[in-house]
């Protein structure tokens, strides 16, 4: 063997030794011209094994659905969570028709297939059919592997979907309630608008009626004024007529009667002594009575003091008359300024005072009364008060009750003149009659 061959042989042996050492995994590093290459095959295998173990542990225990598929969507691998959730096993995929089992609807399957091969980023909720037929809501995301396969990562979102459905249901129910409530509100608004319209109409009608009422009221007042004027005119006419009759009685009838009695007296004196004619005496007496009656009637129809000195003076005279005729003590409280503006009103009040005092005489059972006349703000108040038996005011509320006291015509006339009669009485404690009347001037 040459030296050259010996060296070659030695290198060959060394090379074989290196190969054996490599085969026996007894080499740590390989040294080359460029440097050192670490040989950690076993370590890497161990590490790989550990990583595989870790990875498998994760895959088997992670509560996430993992599915690996090929580009033809025919070969599939699942993790435990996938099998537990959907029930499918790898055996179910061996016929190559797994997609049609999981997504039976062709159109939906096409949509899902496009998604699985598109690697669109993000999550997509899919209705995935489980082996037992239940449709499970799973949210999927895809990850592409270098070898062309893909990993699908799925999350069971049934609970979330259920929440979403319940939320949607609640929202729908809320919407429905809102719509119902809105409808109710609209109905209420419509009702209110109708009610408002109705009330506006009623208000308008009421306003029109009010206007008509006001018109009627004005008309009524106008007619009341007319009536009052007519009443005053009537009183004035009565007054004139009464005065004329009183004048006739005083100037004509009384003169005639006085003349007739004078002639009969002359005739009686011509009869012989002791031959008095009783009939003649009777006629003379009747004539005297007629003259007195005529004078009284004349005074009553037109009291001379009233005409001559006014109401206040006439009432003073009335007081004396009542004392003389009926023994009635009348206290008077007469305002000199309370003289009525019209003759008719003077006579009316005089007549009322006379009537009321006569009632005291007839019904009170006492011999004392109080008479007052006052004027306040254009209104005359004539009052007669006593402390006698009193009257039942309830009885006086009827016309017949007033007639019994001779006050009916007074009240009627008062009302026509715009006045009123007030009666206050307490049985056993006295009465007060008050005539209240506007001091209206003589109508022209």
């Amino acid at each position, binding site marked *: 063997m040459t030296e050259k061959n010996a060296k070659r042989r030695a290198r060959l042996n*060394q090379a074989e*030794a*290196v190969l*054996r*050492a*490599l085969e*026996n*995994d*007894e*080499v*740590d*590093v*390989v*040294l*080359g*011209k460029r*440097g*050192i290459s*670490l*040989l*950690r095959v*076993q*370590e890497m295998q161990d590490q790989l094994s550990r990583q595989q173990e870790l990875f498998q542990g994760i895959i088997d225990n992670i509560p996430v659905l993992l599915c690996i598929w090929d580009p033809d969507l025919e070969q599939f691998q699942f993790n435990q969570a996938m099998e537990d959730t959907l029930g499918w096993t790898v055996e179910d995929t061996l016929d190559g028709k797994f997609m049609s089992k999981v997504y039976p609807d062709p159109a939906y399957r096409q949509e899902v297939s496009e998604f699985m091969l598109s690697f669109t980023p993000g999550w997509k909720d899919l209705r995935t059919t489980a082996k037992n037929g239940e449709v499970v809501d799973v949210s999927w995301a895809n990850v592409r592997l270098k070898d062309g396969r893909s990993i699908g990562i799925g999350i069971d979102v049934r609970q979330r979907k259920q929440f979403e459905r319940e939320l949607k249901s609640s929202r729908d129910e809320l919407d429905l309630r809102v719509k119902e409530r809105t409808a109710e509100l609209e109905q209420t608004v419509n009702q209110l608008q109708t009610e408002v319209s109705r009330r506006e109409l009623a208000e308008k009608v009421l306003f029109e009626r009010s206007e008509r009422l006001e018109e009627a009221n004005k008309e009524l007042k106008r007619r009341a004024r007319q009536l009052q004027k007519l009443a005053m005119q009537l009183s004035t006419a009565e007054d004139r007529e009464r005065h004329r009759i009183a004048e006739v009685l005083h100037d004509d009838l009384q003169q005639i009667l006085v003349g007739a009695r004078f002639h009969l007296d002359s005739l009686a004196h011509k009869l012989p002594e002791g031959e008095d004619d009783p009939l003649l005496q009777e006629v003379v007496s009747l004539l005297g009575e007629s003259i007195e009656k005529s004078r009284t009637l004349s005074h009553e129809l037109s009291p001379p003091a009233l005409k001559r000195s006014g109401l206040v003076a006439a009432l003073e005279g009335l007081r004396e008359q009542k004392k003389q005729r009926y023994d009635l003590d009348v206290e008077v409280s007469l305002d000199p300024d309370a003289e009525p503006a019209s003759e008719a009103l003077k006579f009316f009040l005089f007549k009322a005072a006379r009537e009321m005092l006569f009632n005291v005489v007839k019904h009170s059972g006492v011999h004392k009364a109080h008479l007052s006349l006052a004027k306040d703000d254009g209104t005359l108040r004539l009052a007669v008060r006593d402390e006698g038996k009193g009257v039942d005011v309830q009885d006086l509320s009827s016309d017949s009750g007033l007639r019994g006291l001779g006050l009916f015509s007074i009240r009627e006339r008062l009302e026509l003149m715009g006045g009123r009669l007030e009666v206050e009485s307490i049985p056993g404690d006295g009465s007060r009659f008050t005539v209240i009347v506007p001091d209206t001037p003589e109508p022209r």
Partner: protein
Amino acid sequence: MTDPQQSAVFQAEGSQLNLTLYVAGDRPNSLKAQANLRAICEEAIPGGAEVEVVNVLADFARAAEHGIVVTPTLIVDRGNTSTVVIGTLSDRDKVLAAIGIESDQ
């Protein structure tokens, strides 16, 4: 031999035998080789031997100079001859043969 950058001496000076073990730090095979070589020297070489441990990770130039291609590699220098043993030195007979000592067994 905890520090592979330092040479270790298994036998007294004056020996004609020089052993150089090329290792890669504390990689497993390198540690095994050192342990095996130490046991062989202590048990089988009466005069002992000087062993130099060279860490190629720290001194690549030394390894390249001597044409080392893998670790662990043992260079047995007996003055006029030089023998190379590759691996973990677990084959005791092979190492002894390289050193020039007949196996007891």
